[in-house]
């Protein structure tokens, strides 16, 4: 009897060790894989995950409708930010390059446009925990602009890349593209009014 139990104990202890090792490996995998900031599963996403893992009593339609509600809130929020910031972002891909102790480094790739100005921005973001504060820093900034007016912007672009002034870049292209847009609309307005009065359009 005692032998059987000893045998069972040994088996169970071995199983515990095995599972613990598996869990550590899976946790490492989760950290190493292409990780997006949002894959931290909070709120309705947490509930949805629990449902998919078969760990809740909720019905699928309940989970779906609650998640839908949250997604709609996020869509509204994104519209508001797009309007206020004057920047339309199409995609944001984040990859964790390093997560060591107090410092996390992400590689961020953004694409979008401001009025007619299309951009692609890539940079490294370092976040260093210093007590209760987090110090954020941009490293290695790369800017690509798709603009017919590249000449006037090229020296600005190379300067901003060098100094890594990410926010200055966005403030500048927003005001620049806003002015270009104003200019284009003003020009179009005069073209239209000219053609209405029957006068020949000036070619440009």
């Amino acid at each position, binding site marked *: 009897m*005692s032998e059987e*139990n000893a045998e*069972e104990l040994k088996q*169970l*202890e071995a*199983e*515990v060790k095995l*599972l*613990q090792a598996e*869990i550590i490996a*899976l946790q490492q995998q*989760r950290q190493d*894989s292409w990780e*997006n*900031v*949002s*894959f931290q599963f909070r709120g309705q*996403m947490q509930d*949805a*995950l629990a449902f*998919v*893992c078969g760990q809740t009593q909720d019905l*699928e339609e309940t989970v*779906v409708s609650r*998640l*839908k509600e*949250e*997604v709609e809130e*996020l*869509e509204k*929020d*994104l519209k*508001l*930010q797009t309007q*206020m*910031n*004057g*920047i339309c*972002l199409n995609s*944001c*891909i*984040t990859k964790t390059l390093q997560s060591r102790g107090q410092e996390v480094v992400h590689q*961020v790739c*953004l694409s979008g446009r401001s009025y007619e100005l299309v951009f692609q*921005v890539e940079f490294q*973001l370092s976040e260093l925990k210093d007590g209760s504060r987090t*110090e*954020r*820093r*941009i490293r290695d*900034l790369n800017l690509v602009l798709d603009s017919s007016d590249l000449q006037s912007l090229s020296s600005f672009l190379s300067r901003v890349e060098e*100094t*890594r*002034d*990410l*926010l*200055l870049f*966005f*403030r500048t292209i927003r*005001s620049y593209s806003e002015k270009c847009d104003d200019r284009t609309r003003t020009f179009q307005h005069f073209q239209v009014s000219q053609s209405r009065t029957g006068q020949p359009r000036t070619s440009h």
Partner: protein
Amino acid sequence: MEGASTRGVLCHLSLLEVQARSRGSQVPQQPSRVKELKAKVEALTSQRDQLKAELQIHKKLQKLRAPVDKRREDGEDEEMDVDSESSELFHLMARHSELTDLLHAHNLIGGYDAITTNGGKGMCFSLATEYEGAYLDTYKLELNLKPKVRISRHNIPPFIPLNSLAEQSDLQTDVRAFLATVSQHLNAFAGRKQQLKLVKEQHKSIEVMESNLLCSILVLMFTVPKDKTPLLCTLEYTDHTRCLPTRVHLNCQDKLVPDSPNWKKNCSLLKEVPVHRALTAIKKASNIV
């Protein structure tokens, strides 16, 4: 003969006694230890299964978020159709994570993080500042929108003239222009303040004689290598939307120094390059100690 067999029996007896005693103390322990371990195995198994499921879902959501062309390239579209069960849920999850990332990106690029407050009657904005890749302080500004657009609460320092900026950009019709101007002033201030911090850190041989809250005046004391003559340098930043000085003025007992070609060059440099970096260049040229 008798001695040996007695010893043998006694030995055997004591052995049985020991066994009985140990059996007696083991038996009550064994089931609870086994139960404990079985419970642990159950908990760990559940944790492992959850992690596995999470990783699978990550993979699936990533595939859903990849551009459609790439998916077709990888021949994965067929795979997606087969899994139509709960596909609405997965598409929602993918869209949720996409939106969360985009909103985070708006914050990273210095967006206003606009929130409506007070049942839509107000709006709160975050004004982020940054200089040369370092994210600095973020300021908050709340506006009341009805009946008129008015500045409500904020934590912007008083030396930034909010009210006159509001008048200049016509707050009633163009909130965005107002915010852009305030942001410009705040970022320029943050930049000047950061430059001062870097001067103190990187150039210990240079004494900061005077600076003001707005960081629009900076008076530095240099030491010229020849005779260790002190040289007073005043930087005036009269354009508060910029991080570079509009005027550089030198004061020295030796009147020849400020008029020298070297120092005329240095004065120009100080107007074109941020002060902490200009000083590095001037030190390198051995114009100051």
